[in-house]
């Protein structure tokens, strides 16, 4: 969630609640004969309100399971989750009088701190990572499609190579299809291009022509030898396992040098195909970057959600035990 001016209302209200609670706690703490306790009226109030905020925050998960229910916009629920969830920490601290108490309450307090902390961490990630992803991965695709796109990139690279070096006995994939990232491709993919049909063309019963592929020349075995070696040893290996460390093509600066060097070894007729290969490698590298950013963007939930569930369960247990006994 991006922290922008639209959050101002929630921030001000939360600060107001925090301020009022703090004033109330200070006054209560000074007046309490035995000091602030969780079981006192004020302490219980803080506890109930704090737990209510935690319950509301936890309900966000349930709210997301029924996205079309008209129970308030998801955006409002998310903001409530953030701000009320954040507020629950000081309120619970006020509830306990800044004492962590026995085993259960100590565990609860640490759970709460870590949960809120992971939530804040997640909020920070959600604030910055989308911007990073937008600027660093212009060829972003849908996360679940990354593997498909990689396969298509590999096939495209094979075709580009074979168009100038001749048959190379490269292993073919079983299926071909249009790339999910086709709209953001740096170069036209004539095989998958969709002709744009204007009303005039429809009226005339015609369809727009697809741009023909650029003419390329077949290199001799001697001329293509450096490119073949480079492709088989580095490019294809990178396209097959882009996440493997230590690959020259995985580094944005090194790839420039690599292809610049390769350009000097090849005749001009091959420069077009070489440029295509570079674009393909760039895209593959961007997909790796996208995967990493995606994991950061969503990976923290693997900590936050289980902790939240544990917090709710133990919090309920604490409430029952404390009130009954």
């Amino acid at each position, binding site marked *: 969630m991006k922290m922008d001016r639209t959050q101002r209302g929630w921030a001000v209200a939360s600060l107001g609640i925090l301020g009022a609670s703090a004033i109330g706690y200070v006054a209560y703490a000074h007046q309490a004969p035995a000091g602030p306790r969780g079981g006192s009226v004020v302490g219980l109030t803080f506890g109930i309100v704090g737990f209510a905020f935690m319950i509301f925050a936890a309900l966000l998960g349930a709210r997301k399971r029924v996205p*079309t229910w008209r129970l308030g916009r998801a*955006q409002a629920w998310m903001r409530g989750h953030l701000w009320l969830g954040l507020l629950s920490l000081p309120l619970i601290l006020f509830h306990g009088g800044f004492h962590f108490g026995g085993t259960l309450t100590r565990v609860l307090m640490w759970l709460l701190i870590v949960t809120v902390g992971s939530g804040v961490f997640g909020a920070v990630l959600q604030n910055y990572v989308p911007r990073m992803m937008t600027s660093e991965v212009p060829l972003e695709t849908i996360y679940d499609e990354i593997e498909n796109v990689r396969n298509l990139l590999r096939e495209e690279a094979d075709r580009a190579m074979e168009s100038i070096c001749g048959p190379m006995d490269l292993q073919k994939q079983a299926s071909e299809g249009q790339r999910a990232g086709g709209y953001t491709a740096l170069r036209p993919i004539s095989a998958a291009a969709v002709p744009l049909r204007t009303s005039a063309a*429809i009226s005339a019963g015609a369809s727009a022509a697809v741009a023909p592929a650029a003419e390329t020349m077949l290199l001799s075995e001697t001329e293509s030898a450096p490119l073949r070696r480079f492709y088989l040893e580095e490019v294809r290996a990178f396209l097959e396992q882009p996440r493997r460390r230590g690959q020259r093509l995985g580094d944005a600066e090194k790839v420039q040098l690599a292809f610049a060097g390769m350009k000097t070894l090849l005749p001009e007729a091959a420069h077009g195909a070489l440029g295509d290969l570079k674009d393909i490698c760039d895209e593959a590298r961007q997909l790796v970057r996208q995967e990493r950013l995606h994991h950061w963007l969503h990976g923290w939930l693997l900590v936050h959600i289980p902790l939240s569930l544990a917090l709710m369960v133990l919090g309920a247990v604490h409430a029952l035990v404390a009130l009954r006994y």
Partner: protein
Amino acid sequence: MSSTNTTLVELTIDGKVVRVPEGTTVYDAARLNGIAIPTLCHLQNQTPVGVCRLCVVDTGARVLSASCVRPVEPGMKLSTNSEKVLAAQKTLLELLMADHPAPCARQQHSGDCELEMLAKQAGVGTPRFAKRVSSRGADDSSLAIAVDHDACILCDRCIRGCDEIKKNFVLGRMGKGYAAGIAFDLNAPMGDSTCISCGECMVSCPTGALTNKSVVGTAIAAGTDAQLLTAGELHRLPVFTDISGTFLELNRGAIVKRRYRKGEVICREGEFGSTAFFILEGAARVAISSSIAHVKTQGGPQGFFKRLSSVLVGREEDQREEEARERTIPIDAPVDLAYGNPVAELGPGDLFGEMTCMSFYPRSATVRAKTDVVAFEMLRNVLDIMMKNKTFRAQIDANYRRRALETHLRGVPMFAELSPDFIEHLKGSVELVRCAPGQVIARQGETADSFFLVRIGFVKISEEYPGGELVLAYLSRGDYFGEIGLLGGGVRTATCTALDHVELVKISGDDFREMVQRFPSVRSGIAAVAAERQAANAERMKTVQSVPLDKFLSQGLMEAQSLLVLDLQKCTRCDACVNACADAHDGVTRLVREGLRFEGFLVATSCRQCRDPLCMVGCPVGSIRRRNSLEVIIEDWCIGCGLCARNCPYGNINLHPFEVRVEDLENMGRKKAVVQQKATSCDLCTHLKEPSCVYACPHDAAHRVDPRKFFAELKGHGPAS
């Protein structure tokens, strides 16, 4: 031809004394006495014109005479094979061969091009004269006859055949000198002219200028149930009486007689085809096989425990607004299907599959033989000839007037109030008009003199503005136009063009004016619709004129009226929008979080509610349409042919299989589960008041925007007026 005058004239031809009736031409006099004179422009059954000059004879005068037009004179002495005559003929042939595309089509196919044969007989070798530099071109527009102007020697035989023998008066001459040629009507392509493809010009032509198009590869796959008929057998049937026998013989294989047993499927909805059917005997049942049910959009607490799968809810459970009880589903047959009971019957004399045959649209319904059926199945070239034939045309039109016209008239909401007697009057007075693809039906600025109802095909309504043409709407079967011009200042406010083979019901201006006078409710209804259309058109025009073009906009974004835009700076790629869309539409998402990108925004792949909705063109059952508001909707009787998905340039329409329960025709009264493809696209969740994708986005990243305002603000132009 020689006169019937019994006075005989004596003359000498090539030293032989002959006697022929007075008035006989020299050519005929020679022919009657076994002397052959070569000719290219003369045929015995046509009026001689003497244009080719090949039949010249030497009468001893200063110049040679064309024998086909020169009447005999008493005491005439002439020679048909003197040195002078032979030299003249050879030079003429050499000149003609210089421009002739030898071997021409006729010589290639049948080896009997008269020009090439005569040239060979005269010993003409390679012509000494240069070939013409520019080609006169060819005309391949006719379904039956190929025109090669380069092979034409301007003998006029085709013109005389068309005028004198067939009395069609389609062909004529155009141009002069070296640019002269034959023309159809006012130099229209042959296929677009009034030519009925009788073939008379073709059989008259001495060269390969007019030849029959090969039927190789166009014959309908025969099969054991198909019966090929000769021209003679077809002529015994009333509907083929006036069809040219030459044409039928030359197109044998393009029409077959088929027999269907009771229960047999003749054609299935959604399948692509290229033939039409004409029922001779028996009855057939036409229906849309999928049950009429809504692709239900979920929403509200009641959906919580329901399995989010592809389920179609019965119509009675989900009545939609704007549904009229008398609503009909337009199909490619002489009847429309009632919405509540989409079944009808076809019988002898009914033609169905016309749109599939002429325009290659998918079959709009399933036709199954109710009894044993005998029907003709024909290709487009045969149907085209049949539809131009007055007898057949009259029968089809009569069927339409009897069975479907009233339904169509009543289908216009404003006409629902018309009295039965006025409907009967209209049924008799309306004109049924046929338009070719691309034909302008009414032009902007012309005087409005009629009101039109679309019977078959698609009509484009567009308006000119400085800088181009703005498409306002696509109209299909059951839609109407022309009312704005008639109610307004009497001038057409838009241009209406036939997109494919269109048939219209034309109501004259007089009838229209009488109607609005007699039925005030009709007038107010039409006026309301006209005002609404004008307001919408004005809004569209304002949009086109006010927004500056930009490289992003040139990607078709300005065609959109509503874009789903994702702010990538805020979007956490959580797919809540996609999940919400699927949740609202039976588990099938109608948006893909991928598409055009610019700056920090993504235009998701989701229906853009285009101003020029190309998706609507060609729907065989008219199920994709636009409501009075913004959104393009796909009605529940979609047959899943996929044409709209192919037409959408942005990939915003997809086909998805749904499980439906349909009537089991093998076990009547029972239902069976089948998988039915249906097209889906974003409907803006109008029944939920706000798109679910926008409502469910927790990060304020998804927005439905008006591109005009959005791009203007983005580019710093401020809110667009």
